[in-house]
């Protein structure tokens, strides 16, 4: 059996395409739990902020801290179960930096910036992080992030006096539905 260079190049290209698609699908399945968890946490955050408005800033700081810690634990446990090391923590550190950046500015600007703007700021920053991560991890994250930002902007411009409820449903709904989609379309190992 002889293979000419152009056929070899085509075969290697096919291999690269399928391997990339498979790794993407594996990552999708692995991310679904994290997405659903963040969706539930965000819904809890909005709920608690509604019940205890004076403690809203601390509530959100606690939600973000709990979410980041749980995300790191899920990733570490999964890597240990597979007998593999997490290859690259840089993306996780980047997301953590973005979350801390958003939380810090929310804490500082909260008392002086109009409420609707603050309600739109955190979700849109979160979704921006998802879009940026999607540039490396897969198109789905870019689409989900864009959809989340679009819903945030619609809520910001249209949803008063139901803005907080809108943001709660849009943000946690985007995350939970995204997580379900990832679970259905990913490759679990």
């Amino acid at each position, binding site marked *: 059996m002889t293979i000419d260079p152009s056929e*070899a*190049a085509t075969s290697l290209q*096919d291999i690269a395409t399928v391997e990339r698609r498979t790794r993407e699908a594996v990552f999708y399945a692995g991310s679904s739990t994290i997405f659903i968890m963040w969706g539930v946490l965000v819904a809890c955050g909005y709920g608690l902020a509604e019940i205890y408005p004076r403690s809203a800033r601390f509530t959100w700081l606690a939600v973000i801290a709990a979410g980041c810690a749980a995300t790191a634990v899920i990733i570490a446990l999964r890597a240990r179960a597979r007998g593999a090391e997490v290859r690259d923590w840089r993306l996780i550190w980047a997301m953590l930096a973005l979350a801390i950046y958003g939380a810090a500015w929310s804490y500082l600007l909260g008392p002086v910036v109009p409420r609707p703007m603050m309600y739109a700021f955190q979700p849109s920053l979160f979704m921006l992080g998802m879009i940026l991560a999607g540039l490396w991890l897969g198109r789905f994250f870019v689409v989900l992030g864009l959809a989340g930002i679009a819903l945030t902007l619609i809520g910001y411009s249209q949803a008063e006096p139901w803005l907080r409820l809108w943001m709660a449903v849009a943000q946690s709904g985007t995350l939970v539905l995204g997580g379900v989609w990832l679970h259905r379309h990913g490759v679990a190992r």
Partner: protein
Amino acid sequence: MSGADEIIHQAMRLKIMAALNALTAQTAAIEFARLKTLVGATDGNLGAHLDTLAKAGYIVVEKRFEDRKPQTRVRMSPAGRRAFAEHVAYLREILDGAGS
């Protein structure tokens, strides 16, 4: 230079092996339906190619019941992983040879 692996080199089987190779853990398996989507095959087509690869000892096909539904899972054997690595190395050697 080792030769081409005729079993692996067929276009669909090459994609199947590439998908299984991307599951890095030795024991990692993939569901039939997911594999079908990843490589763009039909049920019958995929089944036939899986049989060929299984007979060659390159993959292991496991059938089991999950929630009372039959489920077929496929994983690469160590021999399959070795053969795939050698075939990819051979393809790269052809390209390197053409470039020099």
